[in-house]
């Protein structure tokens, strides 16, 4: 048996300390041993899909309240969906941390505008944003739309404004975005799959 100095000190103090406390009147009978309250007992569960990689893991999102009129659902916990055939309840470190993505301090909350040469963002309304963006896009399209090429062939393209589509937006968004982009004659149009 090898006992070093520090351990000797440790155990001596421990002995006296604990004996003392017990004698000081902390009655063992009053010591309760309850586990922490299970925090999901009546949260609302919503099925979802992880937005990160392409495994497409099933999620259970737990939110506060029961969706009644006066309850504002706040997401309090996310874990894997045990019914999902691929992830079977598991989640990787990214998926397991989704709660902090949803509530990231860097989530954008309001439309913002940065003027040419400015060092700052300014908050604007959605209507201002849509109007100004539409005006810029239309002006650029009207000025640079190519209906026919040098050979006189019909080409109907608009090259001076480009569009990068997302990597995690839904198929429904993708379908709508595709329709809109091509109706405008866009070709400078890609998504994250390219890189």
């Amino acid at each position, binding site marked *: 048996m090898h006992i070093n100095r520090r351990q000797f000190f440790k155990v001596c103090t421990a002995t006296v300390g604990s004996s003392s406390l017990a004698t000081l009147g902390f009655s063992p009978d009053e010591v309760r041993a309850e586990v922490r309250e299970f925090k999901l007992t009546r949260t609302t569960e919503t099925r979802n899909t992880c937005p990160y990689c392409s495994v497409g893991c099933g999620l259970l999102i737990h939110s506060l309240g029961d969706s009644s009129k006066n309850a504002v659902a706040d997401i309090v916990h996310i874990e894997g969906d045990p019914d999902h055939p691929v992830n079977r309840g598991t989640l990787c470190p990214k998926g397991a941390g989704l709660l902090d*993505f949803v509530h990231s301090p860097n989530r954008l*909350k309001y439309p913002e505008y940065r003027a040419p040469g400015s060092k700052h963002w300014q908050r604007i309304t959605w209507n201002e944003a*849509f109007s100004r963006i539409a005006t*810029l896009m239309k002006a650029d399209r*009207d000025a640079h739309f190519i209906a026919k090429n040098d050979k006189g062939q019909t080409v109907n*393209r608009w090259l001076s404004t*480009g569009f990068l589509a997302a990597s995690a937006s839904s198929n429904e968004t993708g379908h709508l975005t595709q329709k809109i982009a091509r109706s405008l004659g866009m070709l400078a149009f890609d998504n994250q*799959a390219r890189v």
Partner: protein
Amino acid sequence: MTNHWVDIKNADLILIMGGNAAEAHPCGFKWVTEAKAHRKARLIVVDPRFTRSAAVADVYAPLRAGTDIAFLGGVINYLLSNDRIHHEYVKNYTDFSFLVREDFSFDDGLFSGYNPEKRSYAKTSWGYQLGPDGYVVTDPTLANPRCVYQLLKTHYGRYTPEVVASICGTSKEDFLKICALIAETAAADKTMTIMYALGWTQHSQGSQMIRTGAMVQLLLGNIGVAGGGMNALRGHSNIQGLTDLGLLSNLLPGYLTLPGDGEQDYTAYLDARASKPLRPGQLSYWQNYGKFFVSVMKSWYGDAATAENNWCYDWLPKLDKGYDILQVFEDMHRGQVNGYVCQGFNPLASAPCKIKVAGAMAKLKYLVIIDPLATETSEFWQNHGEYNDVDPAKIQTEVFRLPSTCFAEEDGSLVNSGRWLQWHWKAAEPPGEAKGDQAIMAGIFLKIREMYKKEGGAFADPILNLSWKYKRPEEPSPEELAREFSGTALKDLADPKDAAKVLLKAGQQLNGFAELRDDGSTACGCWIFAGCWSEKGNLMARRDNSDPYGIGQTLNWAFSWPANRRILYNRASCDPAGTPYDPARKLIAWNKAAGTWSGSDIPDYSAITPPESGMGPFIMNPEGVARFFAVDKMAEGPFPEHYEPFESPLAANPLHPNNAKARSNPAARVFKDDWDSFGTADQFPYVCTTYRLTEHFHFWTKHAPLDAILQPEQFVEIGEELAREKGIRPGDSVRVKSKRGFIVAVAVVTKRIRTLDIAGRKVHTVGVPIHWGFMGVAKNGYITNTLTPFVGDANTQTPEFKSFLVAIEKV
């Protein structure tokens, strides 16, 4: 993926190469561990780094970044020269016996038809010999020196184990050990799956690396079978879906393609794509191209698309060249682009050569960001010290930043790597005034349309006539959009066999793409998704996870395109007579009594065509079989050849030491000014490769405290030998430089990155994870793509992030 995540459990051997599934796709990787547990499967990892996938592998071998074709070409040579191939499979299901044109040739690294000025090939000689009947001439004896088998054997005969070792730096013993394991799966009841990702796509010859992998699998009969396949592990949750929907510069939905300038004639456009069979009795499914195309145009333009105006064919923008992201940033850099919209995409961090991309953006008149998070791109104009040292006053771009919802705040579907369309449900409202992407897109579009209505302007027809029958025009619902891309009957659809019988009434949802018509009576936004929302309801939302055959086939879970098939080419899992090669892993089989194909999967074949018809299993190809010889489909040649990365430690391609034109991919596009931005080994001696870590997802999770805690600070990885040479200790701050810029990060010194012996000289590798930037809650860092070169794969233009040159020094 040809197969899907759960099916990996059916493999006997798993090759992870060009990817790192354990780190990038941990929950999918679980099916590798299941295969190991339940089939005693072995896992092989081939990677420049000993990754966390390698940590649980049975065999690991390193290779030099960018030399995968040399390695796999060596595997092909091993299989052919040792005759370890699946004979019946290759003979019946591939082009082994097809004769190739006499004028096709390969000479010192270049195929016939090369034009060095244009850096491209005239591909006329890259074809089969056709008989007077229009069909390919074959030699079933495989003796003809012009047959694909003989050409293949000659082409890869050069890739000996010694050549592989010398180019890749993999030891001959490791290489041969791996070959022997792979060769075992040539047996009919043994399969290997290949799992790859951006470690193959992000090279200047990435597409051909993948092809070489696919060729190995075909030789072994591992395509179309349970536990086999070529499995691309997509990097993001819906880039599969967005690609399927055609959101790439040259695509229309469902892998239809936009016309080029020269295709002024609608009929000729269709004929060029509706390929006629190249062998007797083949399905050649693209013959239905017209039905898919017309249905898309009806979905977009409704009543405005008529037979008389060729379904608005002229309204489609036509291509004079590709407009991929590299081309667009090149144009932007030249001042030819005024506006740019980034919807959930962070190109300042994601695109190569930050200095070029940032300079290009500064020339924009306006930039619109739609994102849930404050991205680097949205602040490209802001000074963030050493990490983004710009002067805002000099940047005259108007920037809009529009907050969008994230996954938890919306309904909709995503397509996973296994081609499953899975529906998800909204759990809470977004923060502040954030809106869904659909409302944002509608908001911008409706304003534009309103202005065109009022003021007129350049070619307004497509804008004014875009079908927009949504109940709330300002916010089309996910349900409406899903029904639209799944497809609807516009008129009562009569049964082609019995005109009196109505299959579907006008307004009903289609059951699948077989119901599509080219007379304007059907609308379908994406033919491969057809039937995902039928009259039975939203099949993407199905949640029955039962697996009646016990081989991981949950056909009633969600919806898999196409037609709910889970494993593509599954006809090839049976012998020519229609009997499964491995009854224990039966996908489908010919049921003679019933006269149909059936089993644990939906047949990827004509369900009632009997085996004796001779119809091949690869129904999308006009040949009906899989191609070793890629005919004219690839930019750099019908057979993959090893070329060096654009930045390589070697001055010449070891396979073609005297041909400078064949050093790197001869058909890769390089913009004129970018040639000077490539570094050479005298100044930048180390091979650099960039990658993800398991703790982070791209540039997103640095915004999430839980993940920032796991990997808080930017680092680079180097081997012990290089660290010794440079006097770098773990934890030191180091500067990594390429010709295009530098980053400063903490050094992780590791045994896991080996110094390789390449043709008798030492080559060190430097590893750089990608996840940091100047926004987020993790420690700020440099954008890794400061270092990367502005050149892409010759076919896809995916940037060469995985292999370039750097120098490193202690700061």
